[in-house]
């Protein structure tokens, strides 16, 4: 029995989660802002689209992403013309898929935090000379920091926990797209249970740690005295 652990899939998982989370921070924040503060026709339909990844089987999402980045779609062909290859079965392709897959987990906590900002603080900042952009940076963001930290942590943890989407879009190329959850699955297939147990335990501990921090944050937020 071999108890040597292959850390490479973990490193890829964390690299993927890190890249995805950074991208999500910049993509989800403006979306959350618009959903929180702007009313427009058909908003529930838009919100439903952004929430889809929560209920869709990951394989469905993965299938559509695979088709969209492949050379059958205009987007896929455009990318191929520039970089010489499609996004399918590459690490970059995984990032695109992960961004879509984890999108609601970033948007929803940030949107909730934005909606919870005391409108009096925003009014006061406006009368103190802040334009809308300055008000966002100086009041809305600091007042929402806990929600943003939650969005970051949930996106990160959710991306580490991906399986179906990664399998569809990335395959399982060692050192490139073979992430921890897939390595675990392959270990089980090859009946290497001790390896599998170690990996499963590591993922379990990680997820539990992240969620504990999230709930700790949540509790702190709800007991905060509103300003």
């Amino acid at each position, binding site marked *: 029995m071999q108890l040597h652990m292959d850390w490479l899939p973990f490193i890829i998982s964390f690299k993927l989660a890190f890249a995805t989370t950074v991208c999500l921070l910049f993509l989800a924040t403006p979306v959350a802002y618009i959903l929180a503060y702007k009313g427009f026709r058909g908003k529930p339909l838009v919100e439903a689209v952004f929430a889809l990844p929560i209920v869709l089987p990951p394989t469905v999402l993965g299938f559509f992403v695979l088709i969209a980045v492949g050379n059958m779609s205009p987007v896929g062909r455009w990318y191929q013309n520039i970089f010489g290859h499609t996004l399918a079965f590459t690490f970059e392709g995984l990032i695109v898929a992960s961004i879509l897959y984890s999108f609601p987990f970033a948007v929803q906590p940030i949107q909730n935090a934005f909606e919870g900002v*005391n409108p*009096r*603080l925003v*009014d*006061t*900042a*406006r*009368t*103190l*000379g*802040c*334009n809308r952009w*300055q008000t966002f940076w*100086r*009041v809305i963001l*600091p*007042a929402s*920091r806990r929600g943003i930290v939650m969005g970051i942590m949930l996106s990160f943890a959710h991306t580490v926990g991906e399986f179906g989407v990664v399998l569809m879009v990335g395959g399982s190329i060692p050192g490139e797209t073979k992430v921890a959850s897939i390595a675990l699955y392959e270990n089980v297939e090859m009946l290497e249970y001790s390896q599998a147990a170690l990996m499963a335990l590591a993922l379990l501990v990680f997820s539990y740690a992240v969620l504990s921090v999230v709930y700790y944050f949540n509790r702190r937020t709800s007991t*905060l*005295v*509103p*300003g």
Partner: protein
Amino acid sequence: MCRADYTMIEIKVKKQLKAFTMDVNIEFGREIAILTGPNGSGKSTLLRTVAGLERPDAGCINVMGEVFFDASTDLSPDQRRVGYVCQEGALFPWLTVEKNVLFGLDRNARKDRSEWLDRLFEELEIKDLKRRYPGSLSGGEAQRVALARALAPRPRLLLLDEPFSAMDTAVRPRLRALLKEMQQEWEIPVLMVTHDHAEAYILGDRIFELKEGKVALCNERGKVIRMPLVSY
């Protein structure tokens, strides 16, 4: 239309609200003007239109010769330079008292106005609170900080929306006196909303009573014959 008088604040606005149409025409100078009246009579809404936080349907707002709003102008709140203090104070809870007060000043102004700021901290008796956070302040302390924050950028007009109603009745007289002193010393025009009649007549140089969006009664200091016995 407004006359664009350099010594007066002229507020002539119409705005359709849920239950009635607000239609107000008031003028005042470097004094304390009070908006009073029953709940839901449009006092706070009127104050917010002067701050630029709500938009009137028609009319004009002129503050010391500067047009805030008319048929062709609508300055955003950050361009109006008015101080606005609401009932709960709305201090930024993640900033210290000192940073709250400095919030409306840019970097250069913080240096230039240090003397003015020292005076504000002194006169509002918040010097010893500088490093505290809003969560640890009493209602009266928080409201004094909110007042200092609104005054720090030297606004052209101070708007107060029931500034004393959320605090202990015991500390209100002290704060009223402080407000009155500061207004007389700095001659800043003040428009203050209160539903407390006694407060209105203690503080006000000019009192406007709103009822369903219209000025039902207008009193000037010295000309008050009787205090209305109605209480809301």
